[in-house]
Every structure is written in structure tokens, then in C-alpha cells.
């Protein structure tokens, strides 16, 4: 330092001495005037600065106005000074606190902490801190951080500790809020995760898979179940792209599937059913239902999320249900027509029977016309029988039938019907199963199938008829609208042309035929269908163009064995006695009366059951009641029969009906009442009357 060097070892000049004197005087002046508030005292071991009174006012102001509490304490906790803020924290005035111990202002448990802060331990001088709780006079607790530091120690002074107290209430509150928010967030996450788990379980139970396309990333997330449904499981899930979701769909439909996905970005919804290749069988197809929704971010499609389900079975069941409903409706219609048609045939056939005897035997021409007319009636009757069969209103005589026995007894007839170019094969079954069925109708059904097969094999081929036993679970049974249980399957397979799916869908419809005019009426399979359904069974058809056709008749299995009793036809016997003829159709009644008269009976007529009962009550010379089953009015033929059997022990009853199956099912026919199927011949009528009267005797 230059100044020092200048005034160094050399003796100071007079001017310098004067200058120093002047400086010393000025210093004293300044001190006197109060322009100085600190002095430097030069000690051998260094300089010390002493500030004069009130020199610390700026610090005071700072301390007084700061937001922290400040307090100076003796080492045993007596408050020497505290700022306004510290007093405010405790809700007290400063005056009341100075000179008191700080300990009572603390939570009891914190007294020890304070003692430690005050004692300072080994390294006094260093700052120390602790969190404690202050007790306000109003009972509130204030959490604070205390940071303590010792005032520079001087040997002759008592220890003084300075403490700054920072109010933690707000910080605590915020951290509580934060903790609460965190907790809520965690709870929401748990809830969400469990919701996702539940959703996954629910989707699984519903047989659905979920998928999620991130349109921004171009990535796909897909559940295990969805992979299985779409047959994607083998493809490996790494780096799946939205386009890879198209692959399972049939090649020629992929463009349309893609179009549906693209459209969903604008419409927001995706919903379609399409076929996918079955993962297990290359040739098989399965139907999948895809439903989804588009989620937008900033107005742009960001995600496409949805589910996928295999709906093959549902679609199959829907088709079957539709078919069954259609069959039911057509059956109702057919049944109604068949009833009227039957009455017409009855009138014509009956009239012919009556007239026949009045034609002279030598009139060959008239005899020929008569024969033609009668065969026309017979043909009409057999057609009508098929209609009734279809409408499931024929009078089935169900009994245990061994299909194989029936087939073998029937084989010659079948072979003849098939012609020479078609060979018939009847493989031996593993066992002789019995089903409950009407053997005559079963024969007719098999004959119908055989003739169809023959027509499908114009250049010859092979027809195989075999039997098997199958058991349906409730689920499988539901799909074919039948009862669960065992069925005897009569499988009729040909090597013919096969059918297009469109034809196969309609073959059971009455009058559906692809055959030339006059070649087929389209009633063959209608009979088959109606008969099998009425027997409590079902029919399965498998056919492919060029691959032949297989038709399975499934009939309820039974473990009863038939006590097969061939129906014997009684010879026509001349009758005698009085017959009360009851029919609402006057034409039918007249024909019946004429036939009965021709058989030797005398007759009385009634238009309905009430009239008939009136006649019965008046006359005791009625031997037989011959009534139609279906009649308008309160009492039908069956009711009449039951009443007569109960009240007139010596009056026999014969009932005639176009279809009696339903009525018999409902209440049952008395066992000694004869049933006659319309249209009936004179011979059949004679036999029925004879049997009824015999039962009476």
C-alpha cells in the first residue's frame, strides 16, 4: 500500500504531522457530532469493530417485520426478546412473554426437543433445527420449524440462543392436501384397475374380446380372447399394425371391412358382422360381430376401441328359428286348407261310392269313368295326407319302431323305386335301436327321400341309408328346437347333384320344387319335415353342389321294444241297426247317410252335438253315433263321444276326422270310441262300425 510506504520508516515531515493532527481533530469532531456510529479498536491480535448505541436499528426493523418468528433465549429457556410475529404466532403480546420460560408455550412432548435445542450440544455455534408444535392461547396448535443458533460466545456473558420460528401451518396444509390428492389418485387407480379386471372377466364370460387401436401411434392392443376369436393367436403379437386386423377376414371382404373401419373415423361408430377364416379348420368360416367407437383428441380421431364376439352359433340359431317360424306359419295355413279339401274329397268320394251301385254292370263306359273319378279322389286324398303331415295334424300312430327292421322289410320296394342305375346300400348298424314313430309315416318319409335321391342321380349313383344313435346336450337341443336326449338318426345319403344353399334353404316349403311341371309337387320333403317334427324329432340337411346330399331324420330314441301288432283289416260286413249321423256339413252328412244306407243301416241326422243329444234323449232306438270330430258350437265331436260313452252304455260311437291328432293329444279319446280318418271308403266305414259295436257288446 502506497500510503503506508510513504509514511514508512522515514520520519514524518511537519506537513504530514499537521495533516495527521487535523485528521485526528476531524475524527473527534465527527464523533462529537454523532456522524460516526462505529469505532475500530486495534488489538494486538487484530481489529475489533464496536458499533455504537442504536447502530443495529436496520436489523431490528428487518427482524420486526419479517414473517418468521424470532426469539432470543437464555440457555434455560427464558425469553429475552421476541419479535411481533413470534408473539402473534402464540396470540400473545410481547410484554407478557419477555422474562418467561418458553417451555409452557410448547406441546408437552416437545419440551425435550427445546431443551436439546437450547443446550446446543458439542458444536454450539453451528445452526440446529427441529419441528415442534406451539400452543396458542385459543387452543390452536401451530406447527413450526425452529432453527437455533448461539450468539458469539463471550466468556464473561451468559449464553444467548437466537431462534427463528417458521410457521408450517400452510406448508402442512398443502402437504396434507397433496397427500389427500395422492391418496385419492391411488384409490382411483386401484378402482380403475379392478374395474378393468372386472371388465375383462365380464368380457370373458360374454365370450367377447377387446381391441384398441391407437391411431396416432398406429399400434394395436388386443386381448387374448380377441386373438382367439379372430384366429390371430398364431401370428405373434409383436408390432401388430391396424392393417393386420384385416387379415383374418375373408380375402374378398377385407376391402369392405377396411371401409367400415375408415367410416368409423368420421361417424364415430363401428358395428358389423363378417366372416373370418376359422383358425382350426382352414375351410371353415366363422361369423364375428365387431363393435367399436372412435375417440377424438383435438378434433382428430385418436383411438378406435371396441369388442369382438363370435356369433356363428347365434346366427345359426336365428336362421333355424326363422325357418321354424316360417314352417309353423305355412303349416297353419296348409292345415286349414287340408281340412276343407278333405271335406270336399269326402263328398266326392262318398257320392261316387253311393252312385257306383246304381250303375248297371254292363255299362262299361260308365264304369271306366267311375274308376277314373275314384282314383282321382284317392290321389287327392294322398296329397291331402301329405299336407296334413306337413301341418303336423295327421293322426300319428306312434309306437316303438326298429328302423333297421323296417328298412330290411322295405328294401325290395325301395330298390324298385330307385330303378336299376341307383344302388341301395343298407350297412349293418352296431345295434338295433328303437325310436318312437309311426311306422307307416316313416316308410313314406324314407320313400320320399329315396325318390328325391333318385331324381338327383339321373345317371345313376349310390344311395346309402344307415342308422346311428346320437345324444343332444340341452344347448345342442336348443339349436335344433328339440328336447335334450337321445335320438335315432336315419341317415339317407346320395351321390347326386347336391343343392345350392338357396335351394337347400327352401326344400321343406310346401310346393317348393325345382322339378318340371307335373314331375314334382314339392310336398315330399314337407311330409318328411312335418312328420319328423310331429314325432318330436328334427331334420338335418347337408348338401353341396356336386357333392351329393345327406338328410338325417332324428327321431326320439326309446328303450321300449315293440310288441308289433299288424293292423288287420276286417272284411266288409252288412250292417243293421240305427245310426245317428252328426255333421255340420250337410253334404258330408248326406254322403255319410247314403253310405250307411248302402251298408244296410237306417239313419237319423243331426246338424250339431246339441241336436244330437236332444234326439238321444227322446229316442231309445239309436245303436251307433257317427259324428265328425270338428264341429262349430260349444260341444265338439270328442265331447259328444265322451258324454255318450258315460251316459248311454249301449250306444256305440264312431268319430270321423280329417285330422284328429291334436284333439287326441289334448284330452284323450275314450278307448272304446272308433276313429275314422277322412276321407274314408265304404269298407273302412263298415269296419269301424262293426268294431265299435263289437266293443259295445
Amino acid at each position: 500500500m502506497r500510503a503506508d510506504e510513504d509514511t514508512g520508516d522515514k520520519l514524518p515531515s511537519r506537513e504530514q504531522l499537521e495533516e495527521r493532527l487535523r485528521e485526528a481533530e476531524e475524527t473527534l469532531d465527527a464523533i462529537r457530532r454523532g456522524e460516526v456510529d462505529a469505532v475500530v479498536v486495534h488489538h494486538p491480535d487484530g481489529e475489533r469493530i464496536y458499533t455504537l448505541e442504536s447502530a443495529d436499528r436496520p436489523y431490528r426493523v428487518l427482524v420486526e417485520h419479517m414473517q418468521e418468528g424470532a426469539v432470543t433465549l437464555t440457555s434455560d429457556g427464558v425469553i429475552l426478546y421476541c419479535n411481533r410475529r413470534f408473539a402473534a404466532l402464540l396470540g400473545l403480546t410481547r410484554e407478557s412473554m419477555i422474562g418467561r420460560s418458553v417451555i409452557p408455550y410448547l406441546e408437552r412432548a416437545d419440551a425435550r426437543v427445546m431443551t436439546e435445542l437450547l443446550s446446543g450440544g458439542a458444536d454450539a455455534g453451528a445452526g440446529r433445527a427441529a419441528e415442534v408444535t406451539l400452543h396458542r392461547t385459543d387452543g390452536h396448535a401451530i406447527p413450526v420449524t425452529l432453527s437455533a443458533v448461539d450468539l458469539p460466545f463471550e466468556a464473561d456473558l451468559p449464553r444467548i440462543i437466537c431462534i427463528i420460528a417458521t410457521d408450517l401451518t400452510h406448508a402442512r396444509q398443502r402437504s396434507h392436501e397433496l397427500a389427500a390428492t395422492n391418496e385419492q389418485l391411488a384409490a382411483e387407480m386401484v378402482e380403475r384397475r379392478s374395474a378393468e379386471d372386472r371388465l375383462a372377466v365380464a368380457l370373458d364370460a360374454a365370450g367377447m374380446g377387446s381391441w384398441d387401436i391407437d391411431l396416432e401411434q398406429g399400434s394395436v392392443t388386443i386381448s387374448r380372447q380377441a386373438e382367439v376369436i379372430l384366429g390371430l393367436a398364431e401370428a405373434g403379437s409383436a408390432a401388430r399394425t391396424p392393417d393386420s386386423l384385416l387379415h383374418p377376414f375373408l380375402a374378398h371382404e377385407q376391402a369392405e371391412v377396411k371401409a367400415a373401419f375408415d367410416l368409423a373415423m368420421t361417424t364415430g361408430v363401428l358395428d358389423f358382422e363378417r366372416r373370418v377364416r376359422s383358425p382350426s379348420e382352414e375351410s371353415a368360416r366363422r361369423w364375428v360381430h365387431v363393435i367399436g367407437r372412435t375417440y377424438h383428441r383435438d378434433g382428430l380421431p385418436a383411438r378406435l376401441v371396441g369388442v369382438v364376439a363370435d356369433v356363428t352359433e347365434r346366427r345359426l340359431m336365428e336362421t333355424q328359428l326363422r325357418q321354424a317360424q316360417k314352417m309353423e306359419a305355412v303349416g297353419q295355413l296348409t292345415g286349414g286348407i287340408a281340412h276343407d279339401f278333405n271335406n270336399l274329397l269326402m263328398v266326392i268320394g262318398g257320392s261316387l261310392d253311393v252312385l257306383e251301385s246304381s250303375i248297371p254292370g254292363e255299362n262299361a263306359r260308365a264304369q271306366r269313368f267311375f274308376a277314373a273319378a275314384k282314383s282321382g279322389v284317392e290321389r287327392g286324398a294322398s296329397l291331402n295326407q301329405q299336407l296334413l303331415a306337413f301341418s303336423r295334424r295327421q293322426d300319428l300312430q306312434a309306437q316303438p319302431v326298429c328302423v333297421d327292421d323296417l328298412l330290411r322289410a322295405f328294401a325290395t320296394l325301395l330298390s324298385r323305386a330307385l330303378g336299376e342305375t341307383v344302388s341301395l346300400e343298407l350297412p349293418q348298424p352296431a345295434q338295433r335301436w328303437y325310436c318312437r314313430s309311426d311306422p307307416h309315416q316313416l316308410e313314406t318319409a324314407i320313400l320320399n327321400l329315396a325318390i328325391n335321391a333318385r331324381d338327383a342321380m339321373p345317371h345313376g349313383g349310390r344311395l346309402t341309408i344307415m342308422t346311428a344313435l346320437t345324444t343332444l346336450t340341452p344347448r345342442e337341443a336348443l339349436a335344433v328346437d328339440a328336447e335334450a336326449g337321445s335320438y335315432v338318426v336315419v341317415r339317407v345319403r346320395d351321390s347326386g347333384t347336391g343343392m345350392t344353399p338357396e335351394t337347400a334353404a327352401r326344400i321343406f316349403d310346401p310346393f317348393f320344387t325345382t322339378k318340371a311341371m307335373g314331375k314334382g309337387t314339392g310336398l315330399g320333403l314337407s311330409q318328411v319335415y312335418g312328420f319328423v317334427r310331429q314325432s318330436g324329432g328334427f331334420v338335418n340337411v347337408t348338401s353341396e353342389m356336386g357333392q351329393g346330399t345327406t338328410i338325417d331324420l332324428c327321431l326320439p330314441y326309446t328303450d321300449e321294444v315293440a310288441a308289433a301288432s299288424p293292423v288287420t283289416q276286417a272284411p266288409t260286413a252288412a250292417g243293421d241297426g240305427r245310426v245317428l249321423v252328426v255333421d255340420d256339413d250337410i253334404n258330408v252328412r248326406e254322403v255319410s247317410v247314403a253310405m250307411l244306407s248302402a251298408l244296410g243301416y237306417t239313419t237319423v241326422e243331426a246338424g250339431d252335438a246339441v241336436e244330437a243329444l236332444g234326439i238321444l234323449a227322446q229316442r231309445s232306438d239309436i245303436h251307433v253315433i257317427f259324428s265328425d270330430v270338428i264341429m262349430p258350437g260349444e260341444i265338439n265331436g270328442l265331447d259328444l263321444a265322451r258324454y255318450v260313452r258315460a251316459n248311454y252304455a249301449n250306444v256305440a260311437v264312431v268319430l270321423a276326422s280329417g285330422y284328429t291328432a291334436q284333439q287326441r293329444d289334448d284330452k284323450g279319446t275314450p278307448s272304446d270310441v272308433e276313429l275314422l280318418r277322412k276321407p274314408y271308403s265304404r269298407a273302412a266305414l263298415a269296419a269301424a262300425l262293426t268294431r265299435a259295436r263289437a266293443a259295445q257288446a
Partner: protein
Amino acid sequence: MTAVEDMQPGDDGQVHLRLYVAGQTPKSLAAIANLKRLCEEHLSGRYSIEVVDLQVTPQLAAGDQIVAVPTLIRRLPPPLRRVIGDLSNAERVLVGLDMIPRSSTP
């Protein structure tokens, strides 16, 4: 102004001042504020001030032989000049720093 003409600035015309204070005592704070104002008025652009806080570095008091605080030292131009006090009397400061002639000798 005559005062300015009488001034003897350093070679480069710069006046270098050093102010000794003791923390933030009221006189120290006042001295800083007064000095700043005086310099702006009379030495604008030609001065530099160095503030030495003896509370922080008491050993620096020895160099300039400081006994009372605040004390202002003119380091440049020589000779060394010192003014003691809070510098509230502008005339005394200017005299003490040789910026105006001494009116009388005490």
C-alpha cells in the same frame, strides 16, 4: 464551477474512493447514500467507489488506519485524503477531498 477547476484528478482524470462501513449501521447506510449522490453531482463519470464492510473483514481497518466508521478515503489522485462521518455535510466532504479550497484552518 471553480471547484472543479481546482480539482487535481489522477493521470487518467479518475477519482478513486474507498468507503469504510460497519455493516448496516444507520451512519454507514447514510454515508453510502450521501457519497453516491455527491459523486454523481460533482464527479459524474470520473469516479469509482469501493465499499469495505469492516464487520465482514475487520482486518482491512489496519491498512488505512481506520479508527471510526464511516470513513471515506480518497485513494487517487494522491495525496491520500480522508473524511470521517456520515458525509451529510456536502461542503465538508468537498473540502476534505480537496475539491474546494479550505476556507479556514481550525
